[in-house]
C-alpha cells in the first residue's frame, strides 16, 4: 500500500504538473480537492480518471462515487487496491 501511495503521488505530480511539490509533502489523508488540500479542480478529476483507467484498468462506473474515491491519496489507494485489474 505504501508503494502504491507513493506511485499515485508521483503520477499526480507528473500528470497535473504540480509545481514545487514533492511526494513527501502530499499527506495521505489530506483532501485533494478544494482550498484545504492540493486545490485540484474538475479538469484534474478528469486526468485522475485517466490515470485510473490507464495505469490500473479501473473505470469509474458511478460518477457519484467519485467524490468519495477521489477525496485523498488514501481513499484513492484503497479503491485501487480493491478494484485494480492490472
Amino acid at each position, binding site marked *: 500500500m505504501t508503494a502504491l501511495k507513493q506511485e499515485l503521488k508521483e503520477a499526480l505530480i507528473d500528470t497535473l504538473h*504540480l509545481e514545487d511539490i514533492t511526494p513527501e509533502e502530499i499527506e495521505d489523508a489530506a483532501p485533494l480537492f478544494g482550498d484545504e488540500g492540493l*486545490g485540484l479542480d474538475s479538469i484534474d478529476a*478528469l486526468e485522475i480518471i485517466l490515470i485510473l*483507467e490507464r495505469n490500473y484498468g479501473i473505470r469509474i462506473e458511478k460518477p457519484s462515487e467519485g467524490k468519495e474515491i477521489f477525496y485523498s491519496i488514501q481513499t484513492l489507494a484503497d479503491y485501487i487496491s480493491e478494484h485494480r485489474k492490472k
Partner: protein
Amino acid sequence: MLSHPVYIERATASFQSAENGFVFAEPDYKVWIKNANMRRRMSRMVRMGVATGMECLDGITEPIDAILTATGYGCLTDTEIFMNSFLDTDEQQPSPSSFIQSTFNTIGAQLAILTDNHQYNNTYVHRGFSFESALADAISLLAEGDARKVLAGATDEMTPTLNTLLGRMGNWKHYAPGEGAAFFLLSSTPPEQTPAIIIQDIEMITGDYTKEELQHLADNFIAKHGIQTAKFISPDSYKCFCGEYPTSTSFALWMACKAPELFKTGLPIVICNSFLKNHSFILLRSTL
C-alpha cells in the same frame, strides 16, 4: 494606407538587451502569472505569451478595448502531448488538459481571464503573416475609432519534434530555429513618453520573389507614402538574434522600439520579412 497614426505605447518581449545585441530571456512566470493552478497547466509557450502580455499591461489603468494574439505554429508542446496521448491509448483516453491548452487562442483567452477583459479577443494563425494580421486588425480598430487601446502580440515556440521535421525540410539553411513572444500596447493617441514610434503601414505579399524583386516591392511600398528613402531592416539583421519563426517580425518591432538609435537619421524604418513564401513590410516612423 492608414488614415490615423497608431502609436506604440509599450513593448515587451521574451528577450533582453545583451552586449552584442539581444538574447532570449524567459520572463519570471511566478511574477506575471501568480495563480499556481493556472500556471501549472500552461506549457512553456503559453506561459511565455501570457507573462509577456501581462508585463505589457502592468500598471495600465485605462481600459483595453481588444486583445489580439498571433501564432504561426500554435501551442505545439500541448498539441504533441495531445496527439501522442491519442496514439498511446489507441484513441481512447486523450488528455483533457493538453487539449484545452493546445488550442491556438489559449494565450489570448488566458490574458482576458487574468485581466478580466470582456472585449474583442481574436487570434490570428496565418503562417508568416500571423503577427502582421493581428497588427493590421489592431490598426484598423484604432484608426476607425472602434478602440483606443489594443494589446497585440505574438508567440511561437520551437519543440524538438518541429526542429527535426523542419530541419529535414531544409528550413534552417539561412537562419537558426527560433522562438519568442512579444507584445505591444497600441494606442490611437500619442503616449506621454517621447519619442514615440508610429506604425504607418503594413503590406503582405505571397509568392516566390528574388531579393531584387523584394527590394523593388519594398521601394514601391514606401513610394506609396511619398517616401524616397528609408532604412530597411532586413531579416538578416534581426533573425541573427531571434532565429527563424513565423512571427519573428514581432521581435523585429520590439527591437526597433528598444533601439531608438535606429531612428536617429530621421529616416522612416521598414521591417522586412520573408517566411517561406510570405513576405511583409512594416513601415515605422518616430516622433523624434
